[in-house]
């Protein structure tokens, strides 16, 4: 990729969208990665020789995918409104979630993942319990299972302190300054299960169905999903990039992947490549974590604070 002028950088040569080059200098395009590897690491006098370019491309993309999962720290954020269906369809480039929050009154409320089963499929059955089929032999299914139905209607009790269906729902209590207080049950109450001690709505991710199911109290609220992708940019190779701090790691990763699977490569070479790869990954992770005195300063200023 050629270097661009400052005019091109800021205004994209007056071609919309103007922000297309902003911050681009941090990244190396996939095209350059593959091109550089073919030029510099592959050839008659190199360890990697007579390899097809598509193999290099594959290993480059795999390295980029792996980096996107944990090293890049490039978290995507998507905000969507959740309606009465209590469902949030996962974004098309979703791989895993980082945090899910509810946005209400200008505040982000982090939500807890519900460890209970919240959603299920169901089959229609007759009175004797036999499963019903249509003419084509396909099983007939109801729109919602009872589990889903109860969850959506808010009638499903929960172990969480969810406002609508928590364990204190329906109990007699005292409202003082807007907060509810309840008497302990007989035998006293020894502590709280902190895992479920959250009054915010809860969620469960149904990965195969591609949705996040929420408890009923989230209805008609905004939900913010922080998630990670694999960096493949919807299959558009021209948009795939790697942070420059990881460039050398990607070369090392490709080299290791090729040599590690190549017949008759001496084991000491494979071991050398593995060490190089892991060392470069470690270095790059340290670099991108951006630990420097300036960032630590504010934390260290609290070192003499008295702890009560």
């Amino acid at each position: 990729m050629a270097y661009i002028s400052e005019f091109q950088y800021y205004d994209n040569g007056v071609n919309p969208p103007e922000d297309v080059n902003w911050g681009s200098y941090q990244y190396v395009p996939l095209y350059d990665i593959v091109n550089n590897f073919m030029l510099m690491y592959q050839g008659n006098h190199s360890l990697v020789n007579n390899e097809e370019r598509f193999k290099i491309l594959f290993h480059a993309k795999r390295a980029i995918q792996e980096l996107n999962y944990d090293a890049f720290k490039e978290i995507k954020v998507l905000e969507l409104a959740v309606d009465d269906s209590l469902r949030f369809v996962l974004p098309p480039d979703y791989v895993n979630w980082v945090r899910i929050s509810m946005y209400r009154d200008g505040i982000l409320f982090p939500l807890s993942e519900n460890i209970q089963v919240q959603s299920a499929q169901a089959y229609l059955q007759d009175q004797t319990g036999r499963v019903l089929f249509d003419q084509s032999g396909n099983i007939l299914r109801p729109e919602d299972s009872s589990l889903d139905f109860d969850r959506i209607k808010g009638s499903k009790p929960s172990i969480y302190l969810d406002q609508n269906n928590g364990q204190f729902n329906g109990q007699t209590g005292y409202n003082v300054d807007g907060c509810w207080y309840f008497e302990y049950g007989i035998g006293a109450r020894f502590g709280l299960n902190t895992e479920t001690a959250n009054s915010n709505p809860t969620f469960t991710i149904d990965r195969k169905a591609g949705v996040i199911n929420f408890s009923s109290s989230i209805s008609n609220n905004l939900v913010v999903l922080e998630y990670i992708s694999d960096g493949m940019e919807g299959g558009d190779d021209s948009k795939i990039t790697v942070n420059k701090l990881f460039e050398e790691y990607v070369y090392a990763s490709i080299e290791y992947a090729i040599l590690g699977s190549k017949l008759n490569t001496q084991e000491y070479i494979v071991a050398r490549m593995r060490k190089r790869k892991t060392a470069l990954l470690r270095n790059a992770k340290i670099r991108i974590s951006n630990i420097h005195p300036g960032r630590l300063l504010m934390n260290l200023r609290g070192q003499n604070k008295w702890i009560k």
Partner: protein
Amino acid sequence: MKRGAILSPSFFLLIFTKKFTMINTVRNTVLSVLNKNNYGYLSPSDFNLFAKQAQLDIFENYFYEYNYQINKENARQSGTGYADIRKGIEEAIEIFSETKGLVRTADNIYSLPSQTTTGDDYYLLNKALVYQTLLDEGTTTAISAGTGNNKLIDSAANFTADINIGDIIAYENGGVQYAKVTVKDNSTTLTTNRTDLNAIGRPYAIYKSTTKFEEAEKVTHSKITMLNNSLLTAPNLTFPAYTQEANALTAFPNTIDSIGQVQAQYLRYPAEPKWTYVTLANGTPVFSQSPADYQDFEIPLDDEVGLILKILQYAGVMIREADVYSFAQAEENQDNQEEA
């Protein structure tokens, strides 16, 4: 010649002349060896046949030599500078290098280099290059004979928006030709730097002048189906691929389907050498470069000895003279050993 002496222009002329008539020198030497002890005589037609074979032998041997030198380099048995044998072989091979547009036959299928499409048969297709940014394509609707057939005229086109001076026009006229836009006359007419846009109904394609060439990767038929179905590595315009089948090249992705979108850098076969004559002196043909079919050897001058020895071997077999064959064979073996 003393080191540092100034070379006269006639010296360069001498070298040039010598190279230019290498075929005559080779023939004279061959005849001289053959005539020793009255072994026999080689007619011009036989000489031309043997010359062609000898040149092909040497040409093919370049690639084995090249590989041999690479292996020597990897074994750290080769030097640099004047000891860089590989460089010399590369230069000899690259004499036969050509880069030309491939003629499209249908969709994403292009003809491989051939006498009818590129003007020469290819020995090795080294790489296929793909134009990235197609700006426009269409068919010519008029010619500009009055201005020397230098204009691309297409009444259905709208050249105003996306075409700029310097952009590249590809069209087919005795193979693929590439012209540059020199003037944007109006929305349907472009002036080019070539003068062979002389037919109506000629398809053309225009590529952005700053477009990148992407190198398409050769993929075998055993892999291309899986590659096309691969999520991560399916060919696209950034990483195109191609397969070869008979005398056709199929480009992938199949959106590569425009005139002149694929160029090939290939090594052609050496032209067939032809020792020609026009007159006879005392019944002996006298060399002349005048006939249209005259063709000198194309391989470098330093292979002259090799040519002579190879032709002598063929001649020795022809005249059933074992001594000639043995002599040439022994000389060639010695030569090979020295070079190794």
